[in-house]
């Protein structure tokens, strides 16, 4: 994986192939002769994207005539995320092979895939918003249109509006539309705190950040297996990656933002543990682990904002860490669930491996930060421990023999994801070493507490999941209950307002109708109308009116 260095010629066009290939298949679906072939190819439509991620050289493809002027960029961070997104969609495609027999379903699948694959390559906000829309709206269909996915869609609508406002404010302040320009402008503006909050709310919603996580657990709990990988990919590419690109890491220190993110990470982690450990569904529990991971991830970004010296190292490792923990979490989601008596140990081992992959990814992200800081901020350490607890808890499979076992394909797919993740981890090792070597006088001392927090937390979580099995359960999405009640109240209020308006409108129309009927019944009006219908009277009146108009129209 190389540093960014744009290539000209045919390699420059390769990023365009990534989102266009699924769209090309979609167009081919229209024509009956090739439809069978297209439906067979659909589950594998992310394969070219994986090949581009692995083998294509860095490239920048400007498209000034598209939308408001966009560009596609294949750089290091995008490459890692593209690989992860492609793998997750391939996993989804594999599990959806039988389900994709209907063209309607294939259309939704290909549209969502196209958007998801576009996201890691988008280098400006308008194309990020467009790709996010393309990824999210059909994903809602793939998720089955149930309660969780409805909440996801509503959240995405609100998040996109907040992001649009933030973008407009940035552009109005003179920033360009690409991430670099927006990030530079963000630091210099007086209103940067408000803008920061808007961006955090917008992208944080999509990332399932604790506090904005209410859609993630219900969605993952209800989703069919085939949609788990794509949903995880959405969190990574639409939520976390844009923040990495947008926030001004390496620029002037921004202690307020850094502190805010660090504390959000801790509070989010504690919240995730408090609620996540009491989830009935293993997938919901894993979703809380993902939310805790997102919070920790943002905390690390905050570290980069507060201590610019650490940002170079972070920029180098966070993309790969994101990709790896995304794969680990997706594997956990697929492996999580109940295993029957037969194969229980294999399933448990798979879940542990998945959790371990995610932990290794987090540790990989922590190492450079730990090594380059005099002391790791303790909110980050606390958040790290919470992540460890949730990953450990998610790795503990319930031993309830009454429940149905996890289907075979799910487990096999999870195993493949873990294997892919481990392969990518091996690829990432050289870059880790490279980053570590660039840090002056790094020490292993801060690393040990980080490892202890993470793996110790994992052990605690693993034990706690069993110990808390008999405790009262918290509904998935926790905050969602309150939000739904508030919305229901608003709907009732609007209904009553609408009914009230209708009553007043009917009364008004009743009164005017009565007046109109009264007028119509007046014989005087009848008589006047009959007189008006005579040619002589009508002509005289017309002449008078014409004379009046002519008098008025005379200049001066």
């Amino acid at each position, binding site marked *: 994986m190389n540093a960014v260095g744009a290539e000209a010629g045919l390699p420059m066009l390769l990023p365009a192939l990534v989102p266009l290939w699924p769209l090309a298949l979609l167009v081919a679906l229209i024509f009956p002769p090739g439809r069978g072939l297209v439906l067979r190819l659909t589950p594998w439509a992310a394969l070219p994207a994986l090949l581009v991620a692995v083998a294509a050289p860095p490239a920048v493809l400007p498209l000034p005539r*598209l939308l408001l002027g966009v560009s596609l960029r294949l750089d290091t961070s995008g490459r890692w995320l593209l690989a992860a997104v492609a793998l997750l969609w391939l996993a989804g495609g594999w599990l959806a092979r039988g389900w994709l027999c209907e063209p309607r379903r294939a259309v939704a699948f290909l549209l969502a895939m196209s958007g998801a694959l576009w996201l890691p390559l988008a280098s400006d906000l308008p194309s990020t918003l467009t790709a996010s829309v393309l990824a999210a709206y059909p994903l809602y269909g793939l998720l089955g249109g149930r309660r969780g996915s409805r909440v996801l869609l*509503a959240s995405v609508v*609100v998040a996109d509006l907040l992001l649009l406002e933030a973008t407009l404010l940035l552009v109005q302040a003179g920033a360009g539309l690409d991430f670099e320009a927006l990030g530079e402008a963000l630091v210099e503006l007086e209103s940067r705190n408000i803008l920061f909050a808007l961006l955090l709310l917008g992208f944080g919603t999509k990332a399932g950040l604790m506090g904005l996580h209410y859609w993630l657990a219900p969605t993952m709990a209800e989703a069919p297996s085939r949609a788990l990988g794509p949903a995880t990919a959405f969190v990574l590419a639409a939520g976390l990656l844009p923040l990495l690109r947008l926030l001004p890491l390496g620029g002037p220190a921004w202690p307020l933002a850094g502190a805010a993110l660090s504390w959000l990470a801790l509070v989010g982690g504690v919240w995730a543990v408090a609620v996540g450990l009491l989830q009935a569904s293993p997938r919901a529990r894993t979703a809380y682990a993902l939310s805790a991971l997102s919070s920790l991830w943002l905390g690390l970004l905050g570290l980069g904002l507060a201590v610019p010296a650490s940002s170079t190292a972070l920029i180098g490792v966070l993309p790969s860490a994101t990709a790896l923990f995304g794969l680990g979490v997706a594997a956990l989601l697929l492996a999580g669930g109940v295993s029957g008596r037969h194969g229980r140990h294999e399933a448990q081992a798979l879940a542990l491996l998945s959790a371990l992959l995610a932990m290794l990814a987090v540790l990989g992200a922590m190492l450079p930060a730990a090594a380059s800081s005099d002391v790791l901020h303790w909110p980050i350490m606390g958040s790290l421990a919470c992540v460890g607890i949730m990953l450990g808890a998610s790795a503990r499979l319930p031993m309830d023999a009454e429940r149905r076992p996890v289907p075979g394909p799910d487990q096999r797919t999870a195993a493949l994801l873990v294997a892919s993740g481990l392969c990518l981890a091996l690829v990432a090792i050289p870059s880790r070493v490279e980053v570590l070597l660039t840090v002056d006088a790094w020490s292993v001392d801060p690393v040990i507490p980080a490892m202890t927090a993470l793996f110790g937390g994992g052990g605690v979580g693993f034990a706690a999941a069993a110990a808390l099995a008999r405790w009262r359960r918290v509904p998935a999405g926790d905050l969602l209950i309150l939000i739904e009640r508030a919305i229901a109240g608003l709907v009732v209020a609007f209904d009553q307002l*609408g009914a009230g308006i209708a009553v007043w409108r009917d009364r008004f129309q009743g009164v005017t109708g009565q007046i109109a009927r009264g007028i119509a019944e007046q014989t005087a009006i009848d008589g006047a109308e009959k007189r008006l219908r005579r040619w002589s009277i009508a002509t005289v009146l017309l002449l008078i009116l014409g004379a009046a108009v002519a008098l008025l129209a005379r200049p001066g």
Partner: protein
Amino acid sequence: MNPLLEPQLPADALLPLLVLVSSLVPGLVVFFLGEKRVRTRMLLNLGGAFLKLGLVAWMIWGVVHGQRYEVRLPLLDDLDLVLRVGALSLLFLVLSAGLWLVTTVYAVGYLEQAPHRSRFFGFFSLCVTATVGVAMAGNLLTFVLFFEMLTLTTYPLLVHRGTEAARQAGIVYLAHTVLAGVLLLAGTVWLYTLTGTLTFAPRGFVSEIADSHPGELTAIFALLIAGVGVKAALVPLHGWLPRAMVAPAPVSALLHAVAVVKAGAFGVVLIVYDVFGVEQAAELGLTGPLALVAGVTIVYGSLRALFQDDLKRRLAFSTVSQVSYIVLGVAIVGPLASVGGIVHLVHQGIMKITLFFCAGNLAETLGIHKISEMNGVGRRMPWTMGAFTIAALGMIGVPPIAGFISKWYLGLGALEAGVHWPLYVLTASSLLNAAYFLPILQAAWLREPDARWAEPMPGAQPSPIASWWSRPETRWLLLLPPLVTAALSLLLGLFASMPFSALEWSLLIAEREFYYP
């Protein structure tokens, strides 16, 4: 030198007249055709539509190369009937001519077996004649004449079905529009007495008397805006529009996307830009109240749409809201807001006509009139609902569909002008749009279909396009227009930065209004 002031070729002076005649003559001839002369009627209508589009394309080429098109016909002593084609009028002309063509195709399919087709298409063509006359009006008098002609030619379309509901709707429509016509005429006459001219000019023609007659100009502005505001469905003058949904779907599509509502919005643009001038209007304190009215209309229309179960009524209230985006863009004094308002004239027209075409398809094919009847209809009519989905998402302002571009420039324009509240109005409106469009899409695509139309209707003829999905959907004359307009909605957003896009044209118009000396 301003290319609009260069002399024109003599033959080109006839072009504006030819544009009018291309729909006027077919309209008049069609009246006298028997009901059974289907092919002749179709040839006349489509031929006229294609001819109009060709003439407009010729004029685009001319305007781009500095050509000027103007026709003057003496009417009164000091006042002529003036037809003039400039950048703004060309934008509206392209919209009208293009959408008239697709609506004609749609109407031919929709009214295949209906009675009184000659009467319908006759008034249909006259309606479009009036619309292009409004687009090409070179002075306020010409505008008023064609504006009132629009009223008279749309009334028969509205009451075409002859039902009691249609007649009532027609009465309400006439009551609103005739009153509006009186206000418009009064304002026009009053203005003429003060200025001695009614000719549209860049930056308006009232600046010389603005200091001496501010009160009168304010009253005239109110009269003129009220006069055009009825057709533009500004609250509280919008009451005729939801009732007008009893008309056949092609009429609803025409009214909402091309003719009446757009003519009203176009009138607002002309009054602010070419009568008063936007800066002069702002100095007189007129744009603030106008923006406020637009803001209230945007939110009110969206709120009312939320409570409608009848699909066309929901779309009608959506139109009430969306057309006021144009008024808002004009009223926020600034080039970027103007761009947003003007480009929305085109974008909203194309998206809204798509929605009405789809509503017509659902009604005509499956008898669906209510949203509560739309469960699973996406499986039964995937192409129609696909087009509906694109247009609905565009209305919400989702990229990359055209509506996003309009909202982008409106938002940016509000910030440029130093006012933030339009941004909140747009946000609230987008949320409400999502609230009343997304449930329709959810019901159509994800709910189980209604048993009564889950199977193909007896006697339904499979169309060439429907056979691609191995199930009959609807007649291709009904299916093709919404697919074309949905594709346009997508392309206008995706390629907004291309030369000759609606956005680029709007940038040119705004540049002329704000930056030409």
